[in-house]
């Protein structure tokens, strides 16, 4: 009975999702039909009738870059926080834990405002020039950190995203770290490992697949975040090496241009097509994360055969 209900609900949800996707595809069809693969690879975006050109590449680029910056900044901090909160004793734990939880409760438009009026000026004035003059001088990779520090940019958007995904990545990582078997930590400690060494030796390797999962969850959040990014990123379709120049992500672009998109011509259809691309990117990443988690998890699960083999009743007395 209950199974029947849940089954029906699950089916309904899948159906709804399929319907949604179908609607998007139908809506975007005229664009896909007209530009084909060129829609994915094109860089121009011109809704003026007669000169219409639509390409998603700058938005795919912006989405991936801001999300990558977010993950690169958030994951190390989240893992550190999770370890601090779970492994280290001390009076900072409780306040720190609730602080991270509070971060999750802040609406994203507030992040956007704060990012625009507090974080951006700070990064522009202090952090970005500093990065330009230090890691910016490295050959090749340094190009990422050169550019005009003023004005909206991909980096600032990435930092805001990092703060926004920090709670979820931290929470999931904490869960994962909490289930690392006691015996493994103690095994390391009994060999004369310091607390730090026991984390590196026993906790992190065991938790690795879970941390990958947490990262992917955060990445998924970052990909889809709209308002905060839209307020900060500049919404300029651009592809370039520098993180300190403006850009646009798929959600930010849709959010900032849907008002002008009428059903006359292709503009509205192109935005729908853009949404389809976002869904595809998210699906691809979800599938990839599945694979990654499974691969790293299989390294750990070799555990079972030995343990299962030998549970014989204890002979006592």
């Amino acid at each position, binding site marked *: 009975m209950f199974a029947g209900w849940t089954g029906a609900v699950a089916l309904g949800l899948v159906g709804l999702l399929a319907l949604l996707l179908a609607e998007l595809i139908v809506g975007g069809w005229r664009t896909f039909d007209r530009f084909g693969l060129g829609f994915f690879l094109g860089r121009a975006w011109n809704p003026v009738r007669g000169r219409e050109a639509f390409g998603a590449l700058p938005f795919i680029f912006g989405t991936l870059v801001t999300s990558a910056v977010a993950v690169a900044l958030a994951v190390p901090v989240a893992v550190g926080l999770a370890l601090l909160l779970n492994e280290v004793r001390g009076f900072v734990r409780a306040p720190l834990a609730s602080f991270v939880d509070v971060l999750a409760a802040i609406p994203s438009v507030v992040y956007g405002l704060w990012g625009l009026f507090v974080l951006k000026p700070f990064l522009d004035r202090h952090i970005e020039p500093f990065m330009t003059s230090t890691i910016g001088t490295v050959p090749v990779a340094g190009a990422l950190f050169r550019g005009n520090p003023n004005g909206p940019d991909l980096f600032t958007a990435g930092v805001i995203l990092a703060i926004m995904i920090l709670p979820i990545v931290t929470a999931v990582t904490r869960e994962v770290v909490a289930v690392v078997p006691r015996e493994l930590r103690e*095994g*390391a400690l009994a060999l004369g490992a310091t607390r730090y060494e026991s984390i590196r030796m026993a906790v992190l*390797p065991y938790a690795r697949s879970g941390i990958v999962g947490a990262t992917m969850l955060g990445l998924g959040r970052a990909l889809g975040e709209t308002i905060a990014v839209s307020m900060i990123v500049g919404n300029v379709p651009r592809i370039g090496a520098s993180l300190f120049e403006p850009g646009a992500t798929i959600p930010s672009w849709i959010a900032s241009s849907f008002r002008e998109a009428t059903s006359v011509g292709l503009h509205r259809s192109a935005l729908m097509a853009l949404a389809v691309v976002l869904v595809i990117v998210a699906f691809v990443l979800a599938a990839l994360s599945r694979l990654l988690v499974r691969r790293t998890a299989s390294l750990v699960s070799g555990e079972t055969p*030995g343990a299962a083999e030998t549970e014989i009743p204890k002979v006592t007395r």
Partner: protein
Amino acid sequence: MRRVEVADLSAWYGPKKVLHEVNVVAEPRKVTAIIGPSGCGKSTLIRCMNRMHEEVRGARVRGKVLFDGMDIYSPDVDPVDVRRRIGMVFQRANPFPTMSVFENAVAGMQLGGRFSRSELKVRAEGALRAAGLWEEVKDGLDEPGARLSGGQQQRLCIARALAVEPEVLLMDEPASALDPASTLRIEELIEELKRSFTVVIVTHNMQQAARISDWTLFMLYGEVVEFGPTSKMFTRPDEKRTEDYITGRFG
């Protein structure tokens, strides 16, 4: 010397006192067995002997554990150093699941010390031989340690403990989760190990204590009932309660 002397040791988990002024001595090149019913504090006692007890939240101790005369609980002693010199094998084999057999064997050496690959190989082989595992794994050193059978995993854990060249080896029911054949191997191994180590072993199994130990400590409810040479304990114990327990007339 490598003598471990527990003097008036009490231990708590939070407010719960589980060891009451325990006194016992583990002599070098001898096997000292700790026996007693489940929950009497055997694991707690052995974990106090290399400061693993304090890794449980809220756990604390009072009293002394003298290692060659030095109190391992004195404030200027680093528990990390204690554990390097006093190794431990646990009830459940706990090889590091992401590491190969070889990496597991040398895991402890990677801490603190810097060894060349060839030194590591020599020490790994030595430890695996000492643990009686070498012949079985020498062709599969790069296999995951977790792929081994339960008995092999436990011997891998013994090898891992031996590779850091400790002076004392503490074993908490090392064979209780193993089949009889693996148990026998572990017992033979302990015979070997006692030539060079001070061995302390917790066991649930009376016959095992009688077979392999030189000294036996019998505990009840966190207190020492009797401590003496194994042969005497198992033939004419001083205490009635010891006799009852050993002959199986006890709860």
